[in-house]
């Protein structure tokens, strides 16, 4: 690879999101911004190897993409006098702004991607494509959707952003917290998507977890006074710190309470702890801070090897009150069982039995199996474990559950 090629790759990787965000915010059109930037990158691939790498590659790409956008505007809106005047002025300004000091509009783009007028199921894919520049094939694979379908959904969302003129702005006041939670949800979904891949056989896609961490860091950097954003970053770091401990020597699944703490990444845990305490100073608790606090309680094992299940049960109670998802209620039941006995845990699980998610939720059946086993209700426990085994594709989880089913073997 030539110097020019590696320069292009480096600037594209480092600046893609900033360039797309800036262009999209300026022209209120994500698709055109993306197209113009890819054309600019192609132009760079053509000219840099022969004419040399410009002194400011980022500004070069921005300038090239901007001209493509303006050309397109001129062609599609021939009779728009305003656009023509603007083009003339931009032409004149061409010589000027070879500068890196263009505003960072990435946060605005994040808010547009997770806008309430956009179908919430497409929030995460849209972020992956526009902010991270992931290709449609990779996104489609992560979401288990055929690529043409994903491509259509993304195109539809971007057309809606352009045609309805969704504002590229960071919401203020009360709107900020509601809108921000959609942004954080989408980042969290990116992470769990990567985590799920890790559960599966295919490990290649777990790079999504890195992308999610990057987005979470960026959000904290751009919104340093939002405790939930800080809480999400802390949560992701806690999870990330345990990555290597999730599998035993022969690849078997290891539940969190039995993980070998020496395999935990201490640096990440320390960073997560300090983020969590920074978030708590704002005195505005939220779902992600509470979930991070639960992880933090587990991480206490690094110090004295004891898990404070009562504290965890209490934290889950808080999560359930804010966000009563099936997963949170399941976590509460498991924590209550550890803190106050399996009988109490089973009572909580029974209240979940009629939930739509229950029949196909692997962890629900596995938790049920363990609690019933401890209560000596062997026949029911066996049925629950069998249901859980039927619901997992992961051989290591299946082996773990099969072992639980016949502990003597």
């Amino acid at each position: 690879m030539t110097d020019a090629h590696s320069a292009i790759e480096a600037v594209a990787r480092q600046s893609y999101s900033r360039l797309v965000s800036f262009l999209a915010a300026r022209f209120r059109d994500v698709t055109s911004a993306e197209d113009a930037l890819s054309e600019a990158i192609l132009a760079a691939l053509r000219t840099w190897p022969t004419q040399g790498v410009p002194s400011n590659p980022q500004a070069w790409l921005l300038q090239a993409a901007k001209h493509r956008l303006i050309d397109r505007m001129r062609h599609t809106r021939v009779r728009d006098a305003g656009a023509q005047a603007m083009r003339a002025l931009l032409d004149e300004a061409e010589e000027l702004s070879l500068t890196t000091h263009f505003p960072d509009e990435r946060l605005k783009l994040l808010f547009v991607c997770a806008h309430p007028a956009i179908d919430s199921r497409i929030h995460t894919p849209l972020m992956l494509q526009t902010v991270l520049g992931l290709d449609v094939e990779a996104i489609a694979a992560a979401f288990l959707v055929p690529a043409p379908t994903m491509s259509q959904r993304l195109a539809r969302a971007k057309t809606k952003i352009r045609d309805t003129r969704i504002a590229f702005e960071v919401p203020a006041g009360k709107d900020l917290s509601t809108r921000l939670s959609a942004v954080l949800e989408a980042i969290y979904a990116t992470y769990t998507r990567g985590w799920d891949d890790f559960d599966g056989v295919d490990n290649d896609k777990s790079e999504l977890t890195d992308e999610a961490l990057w987005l979470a860091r960026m959000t904290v950097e751009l919104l340093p006074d939002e405790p939930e954003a800080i809480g999400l970053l802390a949560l992701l770091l806690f999870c990330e710190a345990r990555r290597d401990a999730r599998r035993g020597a022969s690849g078997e699944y290891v539940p969190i309470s039995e993980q070998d703490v020496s395999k935990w990444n201490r640096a990440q845990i320390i960073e997560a702890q300090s983020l969590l305490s920074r978030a708590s100073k704002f005195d505005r608790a939220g779902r992600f801070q509470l979930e991070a606090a639960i992880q933090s309680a587990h991480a206490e094992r690094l110090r004295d090897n004891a898990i404070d299940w009562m504290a965890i049960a209490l934290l889950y109670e808080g999560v359930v009150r804010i966000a009563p998802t099936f997963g949170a209620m399941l976590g509460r039941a498991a924590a209550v069982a550890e803190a106050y006995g399996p009988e109490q845990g089973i009572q909580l699980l029974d209240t979940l039995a009629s939930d739509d998610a229950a029949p196909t939720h692997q962890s629900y059946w596995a938790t049920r199996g363990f609690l019933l086993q401890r209560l000596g209700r062997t026949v029911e426990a066996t049925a629950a474990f069998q249901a859980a085994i039927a619901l997992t594709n992961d051989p290591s989880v299946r082996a773990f559950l099969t072992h639980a089913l016949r502990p003597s073997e």
Partner: protein
Amino acid sequence: MADGVGSTPRQVRTRRCLAHLIDKRAERCMQYAMMIYETEEGLTQRTAPENEEFWSPWRKYQQSLLESGVMVAGSPLQPASTTATTIRIRGGNQHVQDGPYADTKEQLGGFIILDVPSLDVALEWAAKCPAATYGAVEIRPVADLERQFGACTVHFPARND
């Protein structure tokens, strides 16, 4: 983009001009149709002028629409079940139907055309609409065919033209 050191006066002027133009462009307004869907029961509330609980929020809403100057046009509609007539021409034959084009639980009860800078602002107005609490409010951008295709298409004059 600050006016940097070392720029010529012309460059500085151009840059200011450019910034101004881009701001203007961002401010440029767009029209949105706010369509208010109500149930038959919701519509009958309108027939009681003394129903203060119903009318008071509507009066306040209308007042703020007028004061802000965002409203281009708008009107409530009479109930679809009793007043709608639908016409279709198929194969040169005119079919007139007594009733709305589709029988639905909620019907178009009125509309307001807004002139605002973004969907977000339109949605703010929709959220303040009293009907959002008992019916549903749909926001659709008005298709600006003239801008899209040039001046060759049909021109729908606005009320003030």
